[in-house]
């Protein structure tokens, strides 16, 4: 019999003993919530009135014509409150926190979207909030730090390890083992120890449920392919769950190719041959690690994809051949982002732009009576500093220099 929390051989709960009772309580609360239709209804109502669900499915007719192949549809998670799919998971866990009666939430964040979403939820539900963020990501995503602080959260820059997402996760666990009695750890993705992968996937499944209904209504049949970027994998799991039971729909996860798969500077766990099985951060999956089992430094222009591990659920689906994995390089991402802005007036996040890259590579070779869906996990205007820097935009630089001089004066 399959052990709970396992997906094939992947997953598990490799947790310090001090958290044993905390996980027992969390598992019980989650199991009860999942079995209670009123809980899901409360969640859907909250997302409809506080966020912007159902998010639209947009037919990108200009881009469809541009590539001359498949009809391209974009699932607009960018229109969720706080600008990304992250809100789905966070508001769901917020309702669970209320049920458990905890007073404080903590979270890790990479790009800052999960941090902003958690700070927002904490403000709405009246919870104390601390966000752990790698020092390198604090630098990359300064505007999100500003908003988290303004929303009332304490942002703690993490200076250990590679100073990115994985280190923020370690630090959040260190906080949790100290204050588990009044604190819930709002894990941001479908990774970490059980029940987090199952729980986050459940809250995110709302994306796939909507997308399934929307594509049938708007296009008349199921899509041929569905594309999603994969960091930890929560937006991908969210949309894929709407189509997993339909073998004719091909599911494609797109990882961060960074400077290229051959450069070693990337975060492609399943699309490259560089990852191997391991146990870290509380779960068993494929990690980018060396022969000793030490995690390697990863690279991506997108902070939210810059992570050593990947969802155990996706690793299992990959192993079963149910999800194909590809990688998009930093440079391809910038090109896809520019094209999407110019042709459709839509600004995908750098993370989401990875999914667009692969869709654009394939759309032209498909038939006009086929549809594809790209999951646009978040909006790109949060990345203004990184995007402007990557485009080497002269007028933006001039503005920053002037502003700097103004503050220095």
């Amino acid at each position: 019999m399959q052990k709970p929390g396992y997906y094939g051989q992947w997953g598990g709960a490799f947790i310090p003993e001090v958290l044993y009772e905390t996980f027992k309580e969390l598992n019980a609360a989650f199991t009860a919530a999942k079995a209670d239709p009123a809980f899901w209804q409360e969640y859907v109502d909250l997302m409809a009135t506080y966020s912007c669900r159902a998010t639209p499915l947009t037919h990108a007719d200009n881009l469809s014509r541009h590539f001359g192949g498949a009809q391209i549809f974009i699932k607009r998670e960018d229109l969720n409150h706080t600008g990304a799919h992250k809100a789905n998971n966070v508001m769901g866990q917020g309702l669970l926190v209320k049920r458990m009666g905890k007073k404080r939430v903590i979270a890790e964040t990479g790009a800052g979207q999960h941090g902003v979403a958690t700070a927002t939820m904490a403000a709405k539900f009246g919870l104390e909030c601390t966000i752990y963020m790698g020092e390198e990501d604090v630098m990359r995503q300064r505007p999100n730090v500003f908003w988290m602080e303004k929303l009332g959260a304490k942002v703690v820059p993490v200076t250990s390890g590679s100073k990115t997402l994985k280190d923020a996760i370690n630090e959040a666990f260190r906080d949790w083992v100290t204050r588990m009695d009044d604190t819930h750890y709002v894990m941001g993705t479908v990774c970490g120890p059980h029940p987090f992968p199952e729980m986050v996937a459940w809250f995110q499944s709302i994306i796939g449920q909507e997308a399934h209904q929307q594509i049938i209504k708007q296009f008349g049949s199921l899509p041929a392919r569905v594309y999603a970027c994969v960091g930890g994998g929560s937006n991908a799991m969210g949309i894929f769950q709407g189509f997993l039971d339909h073998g004719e729909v091909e599911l494609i996860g797109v990882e961060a190719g960074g400077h290229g798969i051959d450069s070693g500077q990337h975060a492609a766990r399943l699309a490259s041959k560089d990852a191997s099985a391991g146990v870290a951060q509380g779960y068993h999956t494929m990690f980018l690690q060396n022969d000793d089992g030490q995690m390697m430094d990863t690279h991506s222009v997108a902070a939210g994809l810059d992570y050593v591990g990947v969802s155990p659920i996706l690793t299992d689906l990959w192993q079963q051949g149910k999800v194909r994995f590809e990688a998009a390089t930093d440079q391809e991402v910038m090109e896809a982002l520019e094209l999407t802005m110019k042709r459709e007036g839509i600004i995908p996040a750098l993370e989401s732009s990875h999914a667009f890259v692969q869709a654009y590579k394939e759309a032209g070779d498909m038939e006009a009576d086929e549809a594809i869906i790209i999951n646009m996990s978040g909006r790109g205007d949060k990345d203004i500093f990184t995007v402007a820097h990557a485009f080497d935009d002269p007028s933006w630089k001039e503005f920053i220099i002037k502003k700097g001089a103004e503050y220095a004066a």
Partner: protein
Amino acid sequence: MQLEQSIRAELDRPGKDILLMTHIVLGYPSLDINREVVRQMVDNGVEIIEMQIPFSEPMADGPTIVRANQEALEAGTTVRECLEFAEDMCKEHDISFLFMTYYNILYKYGVEAFFKKAKEIGIKGFIIPDLPPEEGEEFWALASQYDIAPTLIYAPTSTEERMQELAANARGFIYCVARKGVTGKQTDFDASFDQYMARCRRNTSLPLAVGFGISCRDDIAYLTGKADIGVIGTATINLVDDKGPEAVGPFIASLR
């Protein structure tokens, strides 16, 4: 049974009311300094040393040991070097040596190959803070096959029911974490700690080690009669950082 027997034998010696277990992070600040630190510890009566094989994601450790892990790895410390060093230590010193590390180090080496190697070297036990009994069926079977004690951890949050489950799987001793949180912060010893220790004692027949925030003679004196082993971790790492390895001997001698 080997580890528990050596602990019992030490405790039976006249005047030995509590044993000392110390902790080093292999490769921090260097294996050469580790060698000197171990010598000073052994010469001054330490009965058990846990040698931490550094890992890039030391989730259960506090800032001092996190930094030590990171710097050991940045200096290029490998698992193979750690094993070679451990082999030297087991040959040179007649005390009990344990490996403390995270599960991925064993997993990546090959869990059985790691047990085999550790047995050859003369290691008596493992402390793996991220491997609960529910996850390690292979690990527990190999531990009895190779007679290496898989120690387990009690925490102040552990219920009596859980303590009994853990005791059924553990060998050697039980590592009682003195408080919530990570390694390296001061622990307040009070009535609730005494109740916790009584709860630990009720639920296992194994010797009890107490660690987390134990740093001075007063702490060891307080633990004597309540615990069988006092664990000094972060305190000696800080001491080596501040005063060099030669300060370790006098510090250890001052503890009991």
